[in-house]
C-alpha cells in the first residue's frame, strides 16, 4: 500500500533542502488534497498560512476521526505513525511553526501511549526545536470540524464558529493555524519524497454487512464492482452509505466511484468510508440510526441544526413506528433542505443528506412502513 511507505526522515531532509517556498510549491504541484473529507487543496492551505503576517504559527494534526464508518486514520496511527509525524514536521517547517498539536479523539485513547513514545523518538531523531503535543479529545464529533477543534484546543466548549476568518489566517489564539488530517500529513511526507507518489490513490474504509471489512487502497474512479469484490458480502447488497454525511444510494456495480458520479446521485465521497447494507435491511432503519447520531452530536450552537436534527429524528421515528404517512416525506425534505441551507458548519450543512438521498433512492422502503399502518 502506498500509505504504508516509510519516509525515514528523508522527506524532512528533502524539505529542508527545497526551502519553505520550494516545499509548498512541490505539494501544490503534486496535487495533494485534504483527506479529512472536504478535499481542499493542501498546498493552497499551506501557502495561505505561510503568507499571513504573524509572529507565531501553529500546526494541528486532526486525529479526531469521528465520522461513523471511518477508521483509516486509526490504521495510519497504528501502522505508519512515524511518517505521519514526519509530515507534521514538514508542515511546521513549510509554514514556520514551532508548536504543533495532535488532536487525538478520546475514543482513540488506547493509541495514545505508543503514539506519545513515537513522537518523542521522532523529535529526538530529527534534532528539532519544534514541539508536538498530543491533545486528548473527550467524545465530541463536532471537534473534527476545524473551527470547533480550535475552540476545543483553546479550552472552550467545542462549538463551531462562522467562517471567515479561516483558521489558516486567524486560528489558535488569533494566529495562523494549519489544520491537516492524519492521512493528509502522511501523504505530504510521501509526496515530498517519492517521485512516483500517486495523488489519486485513496484509503477506503469498508464496513457493514460484508465479510472482509477493513482499510483498502483504491484509485479514484475505481469500479464499485471491484470494491464490492474486496468487501465480499455474504448476501446481495442493497445500499451504500458514505459515512453518515455523504448520503445513501443503491448499489450500482458499474459505477466508477468519483466525486462527480456520486454527485449525480446526490451523494458525497467524504473520506471514502463506505458502509454496506444488504437486502435484509430497510434503508429507513439505517437513516434512523444516522438521524440519532446527528441529534446526539449537534453542538447546539445554531438553531437550525440543534432543533432541526431533533425534528428530523422525531419524524423518522414516527414513520419507523408505523404511524407515519406519505405526507411526512415532503416535510422531512423541506426540513433537511432548510437546515442544510442555514446551518453554520459542515455538520449541519450535511446532516440532512441521508434523509434526502434515502427518500430519493429508496421510496419503496418508506412505503413499506406506511403500508404497515
Amino acid at each position: 500500500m502506498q500509505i504504508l511507505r516509510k519516509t525515514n526522515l528523508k522527506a524532512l531532509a528533502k524539505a529542508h533542502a527545497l526551502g519553505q517556498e520550494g516545499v509548498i510549491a512541490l505539494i501544490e504541484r503534486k496535487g495533494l488534497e485534504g483527506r479529512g473529507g472536504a478535499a481542499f487543496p493542501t498546498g493552497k492551505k499551506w501557502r495561505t498560512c505561510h503568507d499571513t503576517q504573524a509572529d507565531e504559527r501553529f500546526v494541528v494534526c486532526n486525529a479526531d476521526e469521528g465520522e461513523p464508518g471511518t477508521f483509516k486514520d486509526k490504521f495510519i496511527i497504528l501502522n505508519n505513525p512515524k511518517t505521519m509525524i514526519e509530515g507534521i514536521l514538514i508542515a511546521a517547517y513549510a509554514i514556520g511553526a514551532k508548536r504543533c498539536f495532535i488532536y487525538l479523539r478520546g475514543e482513540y485513547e488506547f493509541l495514545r501511549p505508543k503514539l506519545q513514545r513515537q513522537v518523542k523518538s521522532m523529535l529526538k531523531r530529527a534534532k528539532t526545536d519544534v514541539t508536538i503535543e498530543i491533545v486528548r479529545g473527550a467524545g465530541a464529533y463536532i471537534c473534527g470540524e476545524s473551527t470547533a477543534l480550535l475552540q476545543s484546543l483553546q479550552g472552550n466548549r467545542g462549538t463551531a464558529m462562522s467562517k471567515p476568518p479561516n483558521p489558516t489566517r486567524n486560528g489558535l489564539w488569533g494566529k495562523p493555524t494549519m489544520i491537516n488530517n492524519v492521512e493528509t500529513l502522511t501523504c505530504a511526507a510521501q509526496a515530498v519524497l517519492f517521485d512516483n507518489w500517486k495523488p489519486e490513490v485513496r484509503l477506503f474504509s469498508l464496513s457493514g454487512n460484508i465479510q472482509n471489512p477493513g482499510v483498502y487502497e483504491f484509485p479514484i474512479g475505481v469500479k464499485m464492482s471491484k470494491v464490492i469484490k474486496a468487501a465480499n458480502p455474504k448476501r446481495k447488497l442493497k445500499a451504500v452509505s458514505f459515512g453518515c454525511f455523504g448520503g445513501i444510494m443503491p448499489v450500482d456495480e458499474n459505477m466508477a466511484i468519483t466525486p462527480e458520479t456520486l454527485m449525480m446521485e446526490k451523494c458525497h465521497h467524504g473520506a471514502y468510508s463506505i458502509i454496506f447494507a444488504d437486502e435484509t435491511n430497510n434503508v429507513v432503519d439505517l437513516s434512523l440510526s444516522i438521524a440519532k447520531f446527528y441529534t446526539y452530536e449537534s453542538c447546539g450552537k445554531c438553531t437550525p441544526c440543534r432543533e432541526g436534527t431533533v425534528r428530523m429524528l422525531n419524524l423518522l421515528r414516527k414513520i419507523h413506528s408505523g404511524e407515519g404517512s406519505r405526507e411526512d416525506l415532503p416535510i422531512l425534505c423541506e426540513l433537511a433542505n432548510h437546515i442544510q441551507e442555514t446551518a453554520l458548519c459542515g455538520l449541519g450543512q450535511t446532516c440532512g443528506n441521508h434523509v434526502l438521498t434515502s427518500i430519493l433512492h429508496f421510496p419503496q422502503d418508506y412505503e413499506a412502513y406506511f403500508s404497515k399502518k
Partner: protein
Amino acid sequence: MSERTNLMEGGKDEILLNVLHRAQEKHGYLSESVLKKISSKYSIPIAKLYGVVKFYTMFHTEPQGKNIIEICGSPSCVLNNGISLEQFLKSELKIKIGETTQDKLFSLYKTSCIGCCDEAPAMLLNRKPCTRLTIDSLKATIENLRKEAGEKKE
C-alpha cells in the same frame, strides 16, 4: 480574535482538555471540589469550566462505576447486531444508558462511533476496545468483571 487562555503549569503551556483528563483519571470523576481547585489554580471562572466539562461526553461530574462501558451506536455496528447488544447490556445490568449500577460496578454509555467498524459490533470497556462482540462474549465479560470484584471484596 480569541483571548489567549493558555494555562501555565511548571512553566509549560497546558491545554485544558489534558488537565481535565488527568484530574478525572486521578479522582474518578470531576467533582465540584476538583473543579473548584482547577478553577482557582488556572484562574478560569467556575461557571465557564463547568460549561466546558458538560459539553464533552467523556467528562463526568457524578461518581462513576468501576467499569465504564461505551457501546457503539454507529450504523456499521447497528448493521451487525449492535442494537441487540445494547438491549442485552441494559437488561443484564438493569440500568439505562447514562446510568450506574447500584453496586457501583458498571456505568453504561452509548457512543456515536469508536472507529472499530471493521470489527463490528464493538464497545469501549474502560477506554479499551472490545470487538466482534456477541451476547455470549458480553455475558462472559460482565461475569468476569463481577467475579473479579467479588474476589477483591473477600
